[in-house]
């Protein structure tokens, strides 16, 4: 199996298999270009990624490696435990996405830049989980957002979305 080196913005190198690196469409197309330009002597390609910092890249690669490994296992033989593996993978994903909001931000941006569809999906899911079922005030706190409505505007928005807020109002009455 052919290996490649990914170089992060702080200059640290990561050696990974070409398959794992190809999960990123950006890296894949870069690799193809490099492949075409290479003069035959170099055996290992170096892909510079000036937009991704080291710790984020490490985290991204963790995802890529895990996912290529499981994909290989599946193709080796369609065992009856396919369903089990899928569930294992989902559990792994859930664990993986348990990071701080800042890390999550870097991860989602890196996934977007590197164009890893699965990871981007996973990150969006992770962020959506932070919003799901929370009151507007809670969401604001969680994301450090500022309420930029004017008073009458806010009232009208609350009115149109009363169906979602309704219990809150009952609480207020109590």
């Amino acid at each position: 199996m052919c290996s490649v080196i990914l170089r992060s913005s702080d200059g640290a190198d990561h050696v990974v298999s070409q398959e794992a690196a190809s999960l990123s469409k950006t890296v894949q197309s870069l690799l193809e270009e490099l492949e075409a330009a290479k003069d035959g002597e170099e055996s290992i390609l170096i892909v510079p990624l000036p937009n991704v910092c080291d710790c984020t890249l490490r985290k991204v690669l963790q995802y890529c490696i895990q996912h290529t490994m499981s994909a290989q296992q599946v193709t080796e033989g369609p065992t009856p435990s396919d369903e089990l593996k899928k569930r294992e993978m989902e559990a792994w994903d859930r664990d993986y996405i348990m990071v701080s909001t800042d890390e999550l931000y870097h991860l989602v941006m890196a996934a977007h830049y590197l164009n890893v569809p699965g990871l981007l999906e996973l990150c969006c899911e992770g962020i959506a989980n932070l919003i799901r079922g929370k009151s507007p005030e809670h969401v604001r706190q969680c994301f450090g957002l500022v309420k930029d409505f004017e008073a009458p505007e806010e009232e009208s928005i609350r009115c149109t979305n009363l169906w979602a807020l309704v219990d809150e109002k009952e609480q207020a009455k109590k």
Partner: protein
Amino acid sequence: MIMYGLRLRHTSKQVAELSLLQAKLPEEILTQILSKLPSLSLGLAQCVCKQFRSLCCTDTLWRPASVEAFWQEFSREAAPVASIHALVRSQYRGSWHKMFMERPHLRFDGLYVSRNTYIRTGLVEWRVKNPVHLVCYYRYFRFFPDGTLLYRTSPEVPVQVQRSMRTLVRNRMDEGVLRGRYLLRKDNLFTSLPLGNTAGTEIRTRLRLRSTCRGGNNRLDVDKILSYDRGSDLGVPMLDHANGEEEEEVGGRQYRRGLAPYTFVAWEHMQDSILNLPVHKMDFYVAG
């Protein structure tokens, strides 16, 4: 520091809670995140800030919720989804959000709770006291998009029953959860519940769906509860054929108790709903 083509500042201690996620996330990613949210969270997110509000109004975000909400209504047709598409174009100016807010539909993200209380006179001892008991019990409905429903009568408060009614997966007969079918025609709701006993009793309820606010769909008024002893007579039509206008069958027993209107409580609000209050804190609950 410049990354991902944006200028970022390291978050200092002071603004620690102002995470990078805020305004720095490009709108396309935010939209993708919002598309993962259920309708209730979308409604809540609209109240967060201007940016969220305009993003949450993106019409396509409401498409999955609308299709789910109205699927049952069109499930008899050859291509339900196509029918819903036709409807949204013809009646709601092509807006999924408008359709979701304006057309009556059942809500699948919580329980409809009917809290019933009645007074029972207690045992008179020595003619000193004349005790009365205030008895409280609940009726619960949980609807699923495919026309299935779960029903339960229980003295337990919503927080305690919610786990048993969350999913269809396990058969929870032992917990007193019954499984039936429903039909919604405009705002008329018909439910059918086989009790599974030897007499083959079926309970039918006629309800009316109502909203206390726009798009609420949060009240069910009980019109009638009837029970039929079917025996092993399977010739009796089940709810399937009914277009809702079926005539009343003979031989039904009508229930006169426990007709309190149902209030919708979303899973997210279950924990702090006032319906959880015990009788000594809240004697009668009148659903508005």
